[in-house]
């Protein structure tokens, strides 16, 4: 044994303490940020705040149009991105054989996931708003968010489908099922927990995003009725309230609502996926 200032046992103890501290710091960061926002923001949140229109650009009043806008853009993103993401994942795992194409598609999806949201914003403005003539609307915003959610849904679905044991497929083929029947009836149902997780992660990204939609949705303060109406999703509203110094109280309230939505989605989806998995495993 070489002579060291600290024996291996002592350095082990020191490092254990360092690791535990790093874990605690990470937890504290979350508690600090969420706790601060909730403590400051919850007093401003009430049913009236949620269901009334903003007055004087959001200085007074509530956030009802922003909640409707958020629902609109998130739903549009989900409806467009979910089938595309799952379809792409099914193709990559069950059909694709050309190695080079698979690599290109994967690199494409990685690249799409890394493009900064503000570049999506620029693209949304030139392509959806101006080139396709969709105007400043929740539709334009939703389509931009669909593109951002696509790689998340695709990657998580792909990993899940790959992990389905091949014996499932063989059993189905053995019974005379075609390839699509096997995918539709056997592979996809088994992969649902993972796919749902992917879709939820993608949707959380869409709910939280402001930079990508700020040039596409139009920032209107009224409730969007049709998908061609402009809107202002919650994160964008918070950004405008905070940076233009309109109302600190309403900014706190909006931030609290956003945090609650994200927390609720994370907790419920974790619980639901756990339950579904237990049900499948239990059989």
């Amino acid at each position, binding site marked *: 044994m070489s002579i060291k200032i600290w024996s*291996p*046992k002592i*350095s*082990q103890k020191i*490092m*254990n303490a*360092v*690791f*535990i501290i*790093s*874990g605690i*710091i*990470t*937890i504290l*960061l*979350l508690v600090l*940020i*969420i706790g601060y*926002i909730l403590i400051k923001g919850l007093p401003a949140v009430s049913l009236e705040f949620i269901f009334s229109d903003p007055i004087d650009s959001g200085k007074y009043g509530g956030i009802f149009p922003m909640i409707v806008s958020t629902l609109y853009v998130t739903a549009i993103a989900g409806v467009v991105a979910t089938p*595309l993401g799952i*379809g*792409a994942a099914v*193709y*990559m795992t069950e059909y694709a054989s050309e190695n080079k194409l698979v690599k*290109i598609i994967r*690199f*494409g*999806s*990685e*690249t*799409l996931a*890394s*493009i*900064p*949201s*503000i*570049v999506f*914003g*620029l*693209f949304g403005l*030139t*392509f959806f708003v101006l*080139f396709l003539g969709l105007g400043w609307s929740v539709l334009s915003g939703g389509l931009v968010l669909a593109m951002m959610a696509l790689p998340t849904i*695709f990657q998580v679905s792909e990993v899940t489908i790959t992990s389905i044991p091949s014996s499932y497929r063989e059993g189905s083929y053995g019974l005379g099922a*075609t390839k699509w029947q096997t995918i539709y009836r056997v592979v996809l149902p088994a992969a649902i927990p993972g796919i749902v997780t992917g879709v939820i992660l993608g949707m959380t990204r869409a*709910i*939280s*995003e402001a*930079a990508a939609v700020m040039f596409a949705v139009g920032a209107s303060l009224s409730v969007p009725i049709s998908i061609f109406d402009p809107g202002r999703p919650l*994160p*964008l509203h*918070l*950004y405008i309230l*905070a*940076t233009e110094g309109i109302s600190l109280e309403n*900014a706190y309230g909006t931030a609290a609502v*956003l945090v609650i939505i*994200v927390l609720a*989605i994370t907790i419920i989806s*974790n619980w639901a996926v756990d339950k579904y998995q237990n049900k499948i495993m239990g059989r």
Partner: protein
Amino acid sequence: MDKNNLSEFIIEKGLFIMAIFSIIIIFLIISFVLLEGLPAFEDYGFFQFIFGLTWAPNDSQYGVFAMIIGSICVTLLAMLMAVPLSLLCAIFMAEVAPSKVRKILKPVIETLSGIPSVVYGFFGLIVLVPIIRENFGGTGFSMFTASLILAVMVLPTIITLSQDSLRSVPHEYREASLGLGATNWQTIKNIIFPAALPGIITSIILGMGRAIGETLAVIMVAGNVVQIPNSIFDPVRTLTANIAIEMGYATGLHYNALFGTGIVLFIIIIGLLVVANYIQHKYKVDVGGGYL
């Protein structure tokens, strides 16, 4: 039977089109952003645009160099703070912590990554800016404030990805080292960490990509003055901030110059992505087959 074959054929082709959709989208993004951004390079001159120190749209001056430096400085400072903490936390979760603790940390990190960036920015604006102003002087809107916020924002990315790469080190490595009498920490330091290093570097690079691309959280705390910062408590403007702040009212060449800023940003991101892929590819070839 024929009908079955036909529908199987149609399904396969349909799925193929879905699969290449992300490529189509990237192609569209690149062409549309280039289309709007290239006039700025042509009219103003590519090198003048990249290395020009003055950004003054009113005088038709469009040099983005200060913002390139701003983006790089903010990101590097954020990494300096985020990397040690996130690597320790990743090792803790992958190697040290009992599964009970792991079950607490995992949702914590998921939630951290789910918090909207605007909320981070708002928190920075309300809490950090006053603290920095009181303790370090100035307005509190600074490169340091932005880096602090970014450091927290990239934690989940680096922790999750480097944890994956630590986990995928084969169990035999661990057992062999522990069997030789090494302590857990010696095993981590000498065996597991080096084996997982390429994956860890990739996770850091992807974290950098997130930091460079972050927009609104940075705008809310960085002060956004176009200048090359002299100290970490000077305000800076990043490339992303430049686009978001001025896009609302830009016309003509100014509009093109903002798309040009987007192109610069895009090139930086693609560069990082290529490096990350190269590192993963290279170490796999070097060791020949197995995961080390």
